[in-house]
């Protein structure tokens, strides 16, 4: 079983990206032997009202049961708690808010309120550090990357808060993990999409220093080839149990065991 917690549907505003339709993403999942994916409505991340993409996302995921909706919530909009309630009712494995794309303070009161409410509702809050390599971004794509300090602040905002952080590299992960108490660190999961394999061996190092239970399989598709995340795992020397944890079991723990 392999679950991709970091997948998108729909077009990207800053570049022509092929394969963004649900059927294309499912074909890519078949190619990379990915059974299920947590999917975000990609264009909605850039809208003033990101939750406006949720209805389409819910309909699409109902049509394609291998896809699970990661609903967008904007805690700066007055109806955000209704949006969260609907996400829970729709069995979303996680809700997401990318504060920098919403021009919200990454660890400001709105984000703290959202993280706390999501935790109380039994859902992890999913955030991306970045979507693209800074060096290649469109000249007008000047949104800051999510700061590590924000992740540390959000995880400290309540004991029920759980976070899934995607597109983080080794330095970011180490800074947050070792800048958190063991209890806080146990409530954060990191996707492997942006962590380097050999010869730098960042992923192998993190699995040794932080532990495999903190990592989940994620690709960033269709912006990125899903083969990269699979190749990282194929280059690791880990036990079948550890690999299964990264590929699916940790994702189940992150979503709180609810199915």
């Amino acid at each position, binding site marked *: 079983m392999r679950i991709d917690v970091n997948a998108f549907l729909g077009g990207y505003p800053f570049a022509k990206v092929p394969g963004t339709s649900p059927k294309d993403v499912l074909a890519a999942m078949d190619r990379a032997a990915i059974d299920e994916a947590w999917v975000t409505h990609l264009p909605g991340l850039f809208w003033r009202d990101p939750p406006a993409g949720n209805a389409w996302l819910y309909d699409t995921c109902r049509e394609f049961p291998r896809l699970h909706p990661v609903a967008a919530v904007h805690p700066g909009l007055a109806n955000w708690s209704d949006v969260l309630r609907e996400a829970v009712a729709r069995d979303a494995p996680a809700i997401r808010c990318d504060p920098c794309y919403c021009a919200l303070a990454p660890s400001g009161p709105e984000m703290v309120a959202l993280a706390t409410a999501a935790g109380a509702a039994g859902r992890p809050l999913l955030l991306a550090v970045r979507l693209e*390599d800074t060096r*290649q971004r469109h000249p007008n794509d000047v949104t800051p990357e999510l700061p590590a300090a924000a992740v540390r602040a959000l995880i400290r905002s309540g004991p029920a808060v759980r976070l899934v952080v995607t597109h983080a590299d080794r330095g970011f992960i180490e800074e947050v993990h070792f800048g958190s108490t063991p209890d806080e660190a146990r409530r954060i999961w990191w996707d492997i999409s942006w962590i380097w394999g050999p010869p730098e061996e960042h992923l192998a190092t993190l699995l040794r220093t932080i532990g495999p239970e903190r990592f989940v399989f994620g690709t960033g598709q269709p912006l990125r*080839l899903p083969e990269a995340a699979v190749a990282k795992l194929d280059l690791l020397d880990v036990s079948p149990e550890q690999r299964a944890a990264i590929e699916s079991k940790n994702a189940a723990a992150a979503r709180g065991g609810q199915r």
Partner: protein
Amino acid sequence: MLIDVHAHFFPERSPRSDWRAYNASRLRAGERIGITLHVTSTLGTFGFTSPTYFPSPDDVVYGNDFTIALQREHAARIRGYACVNPNYQDHARAEIARGRSAGLIGVKLAASRRADDPLLDAICDTARHHGLPILQHIWQGRRRDWPGQEASDGAELCRLAARHPQVSFILAHVAGGGDWRHTLAVVPAHANVYLDLSGSGVDSGMLEACLAAAGTERLLWGSDITMDTGWAKLRYLKHILSPADFELVAWKNAARIFPPGSFPSD
């Protein structure tokens, strides 16, 4: 057969105390991926006693000595480029000749001088004399100067390539940062410029765009410092290319531009 045209191994005199583990990791991952030959370059001391992209003459010699020793120690697995700093013209040309006589199979230009600078002409003439391709470090779509290097972009390399049509140029790490679309807009007209697919980038659509810009006969597979993303691109290429075209990218194009006899199957 699989040739990685963009590899690096670290020498003892470098900032990396884990250089032995790093090198072992590359060889181990190469076994798993199925890499037949790593073609490596050593950029001086990688910043230990002179800057990585501006290596001193002494460090150039040290680095090339390390590459030559690696190639001898791992004759079945490693080939090397002679890395030179074109600001030291006579030294650079002598290092190319020395490297070639010691069995190195290409020239590596890092970022010590802009690619279209006239100082590079003599380097290209020397490479042509020895029948060696030139691997040029490239920043895809450079819009400003970056610290620590005098980086060039694809357009600047293509200007050099137009002046030296008999030399094969390997445009480094098209997936290694910057806007690869900027590069792909300029390469179609330059038949002696080959795209090295290495780099950490695995953007969807990038490989198809490289194929459209340069065709299967001008793509070279490589990994640089992220072998996982290199393997991912290799897997995807196998999905989108015919077996014959895949072999071109995996090794046959490389075998064509490096000196005859560089690889076992030549």
